[in-house]
């Protein structure tokens, strides 16, 4: 009897020990980063490590460049997903108050969301202002609130119209459409001649739609981070409705596709010449190349033109994406983390690799003003000097956007409505009204005063 009780007790003990072992390992502490798992190889093994999340396709090289030139600190990098996937993980870590990296890559439109949660460190006291001179006033404004600086800008996303030269030539389009009316007319022309789709209204890239609405004069959000509890939401103004209606019309006429972008399905369509144009940002070709675009029969068939305009006498430049490195409040050593945020992807070699491969559009003015970038013939665009011709002028004309502190939710609502438009279930005006309703309701629930 006694023996049996003993065995049972021992079993229980072993189980309990097992449970305890499971629950361990998550703790923080000064040397927590010593055991951090990194995707990259640490070069100077004695130096303290700073953990970082980033998804640039060339991050491996960027991190190696940083680690080679720094003996006092080493970056321990991981890619936890591109865009939304990373934000979900970071948001969870912020809510849990543990598990976030020291340095995190964020797009400019997502900064406000984390600033209001106190998740990011003001790096102005760690020397951020020393690099201020490298950036345009607009780019710096995107990462700062008053005197506080919440991230180090890396790249922007000036938009242009990427198109297929072979398709344009085949269907007799001699010059890329300069206005959205021409865009629709050319699309009709190609369709009537039995050609492919002219473009694509991807439901999963709502930020593109937001940019196109802003181009027409929409002001989706009014938000001043110094008054964090007040927000203006105007998602159903005439400009927003008109742009949605314009695209809904193209979808209805079968002129543009309805596929989600960045999926294997879509990429194969881009490679196979299923789309004549691609409304996108300067960094997009780098991601397409990584997925296999521009390497087979479509090699050198791409070119880029300025984004079509509503009013050609009064052109408006818009932006999609572009990221910055921020230091999280969970960083173990904030000064070291700031050194990484300010130094990562800021060296000439990394930036050059980024822009030559169309992976990033650098915001660093020294690079942007150099003759080299303006005159550089890009392989992807068949030797076109795309930076000098299209992207740098677009960036110079970009006036900056105002984002909301609940951008993720807004994008999800817009995505839902874009899908409905693609399914022919709703018109543009109805979609705009639905997004407005949902976002205002959410903002109020979150405790904001909606103006």
């Amino acid at each position, binding site marked *: 009897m006694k023996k049996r009780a003993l065995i049972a007790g021992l079993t229980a003990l072993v189980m309990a020990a097992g449970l305890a072992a499971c629950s361990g390992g998550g703790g923080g502490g000064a040397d927590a980063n010593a055991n951090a798992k990194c995707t990259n190889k640490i070069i100077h093994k004695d130096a303290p490590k700073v953990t970082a999340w980033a998804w640039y396709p060339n991050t491996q090289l960027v991190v190696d460049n940083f680690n080679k030139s720094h003996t006092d600190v080493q970056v321990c990098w991981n890619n936890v997903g591109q865009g939304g996937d990373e934000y979900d993980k970071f948001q969870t870590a912020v809510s849990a108050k543990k598990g976030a990296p020291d340095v995190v890559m964020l797009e400019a439109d997502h900064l406000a969301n984390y600033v209001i949660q106190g998740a990011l460190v003001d790096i102005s006291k760690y020397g951020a202002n020393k690099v201020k001179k490298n950036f345009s006033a607009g780019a710096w404004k995107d990462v700062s609130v008053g005197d506080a600086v919440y991230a180090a800008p890396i790249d922007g996303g000036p938009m242009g119209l990427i198109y297929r030269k072979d398709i344009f030539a085949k269907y007799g389009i001699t010059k890329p459409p300069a206005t959205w009316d021409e865009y629709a007319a050319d699309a009709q022309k190609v369709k009537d001649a039995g050609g492919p789709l002219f473009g694509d209204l991807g439901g999963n890239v709502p930020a593109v739609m937001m940019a196109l609405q802003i181009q027409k004069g929409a002001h989706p959000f009014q938000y001043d981070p110094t008054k964090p509890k007040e927000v203006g939401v105007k998602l159903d103004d005439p400009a927003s409705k008109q742009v949605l209606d314009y695209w809904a019309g193209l979808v209805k006429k079968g002129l543009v596709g309805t596929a989600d972008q960045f999926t294997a399905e879509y990429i194969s369509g881009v490679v196979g010449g299923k789309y004549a144009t691609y409304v996108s940002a300067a960094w997009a070709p780098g991601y397409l190349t990584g997925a296999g675009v521009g390497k087979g029969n479509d090699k050198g068939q791409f070119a880029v033109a300025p984004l079509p305009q509503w009013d050609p006498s009064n052109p408006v430049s818009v932006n999609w994406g572009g990221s910055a490195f921020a230091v999280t409040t969970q960083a173990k050593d904030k000064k070291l983390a700031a050194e990484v945020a300010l130094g990562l992807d800021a060296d000439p070699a990394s930036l050059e690799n980024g822009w030559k491969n169309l992976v990033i559009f650098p915001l660093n003015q020294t690079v942007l003003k150099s003759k080299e970038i303006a005159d550089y013939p890009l392989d992807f665009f068949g030797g076109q000097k795309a930076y000098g011709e299209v992207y740098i002028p677009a960036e110079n004309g970009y006036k900056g956007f105002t984002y909301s502190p609940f951008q993720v939710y807004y994008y999800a609502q817009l995505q*839902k409505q874009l899908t409905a438009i693609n399914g022919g279930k709703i018109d543009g005006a109805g979609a705009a009204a639905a997004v407005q309703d949902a976002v205002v309701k959410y903002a109020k629930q979150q405790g904001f005063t909606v103006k």
Partner: protein
Amino acid sequence: MPTSPAQRAANRRRTLTGWMFILPFTLVFLVFLVAPLLYAFYNSLFTKGLATGTVFAPLDNYIKAFTDPSFLGGVAFVVGFSLVLIPVQMIISLAIALVLDAVTTRFARFARLMIFLPYAIPAVIGAIMWGFLYSPTFGPLGQLFGLVGLKAPFLLDASHVFGGLMNIVTWQWAGYYMIIIYAALQGIDPTLYEAARIDGANARQIALRIKLPLVTNALLLILVFALIGTLQFFTEPSVLRTISNGGITQDFTPNLYAYFTAFSYAQFNYASALSFALGVVVFVCVYIFLFLTRKRGSFLS
């Protein structure tokens, strides 16, 4: 009869031994089931917004949940899905089980294994596989339709997703249910068949009049499993969402909605309430079902 002190001591020891044996399970049960449930319930009693602090408001989240079109839409979907899916699944698995029970060739054993196989494939892998099969560009469906010059329907877009998912779930689970029914059929005393045959019953009559009534308990068990599983539908939509071209939204099913509410929007309190609200829905549905089948069923009695 008074017990001696020695006997009482022995009894105590015996009781203690019993407790020691269930201790490991109890620990796991408490740590991984009861504690998280209590914690989630506690969380669900608070509200938190980006611009407000955490506020104790015991009913707010629940009132919000049961008036939230996203949640109610998801519930409507899973209830509708259950109503169509479960009968289809039951009929398929029952038919296969009856056939396999009647024939005893080597082929029948092989077929049994093959039909069961999808259940052995992890749900995530199965979903990815179907995602490929459904793909208009890469999948066989596109090529088949292409042969006759038609455009294949995309079975995951908003208008086809119901059928597309139903096919995946049926494929995944029918084999498992078939094995349960088959096992129940094997447990039937063969002398009953002999008696029926002597009385002049043919094979169809034996199947419908003898076998079917005798496996009702197994069927009810399956129904309850399937109902609970379907109301909590998550894995397949979650895996296929990114390739569904918007056909599967973040609030497609209540579980998916709770997941995104928690991990995309950091509304852990509301997500906890959504989970409990879903629990209530599941409880009500299962209760209604057991109530309706109480005369024939003895699953819980």
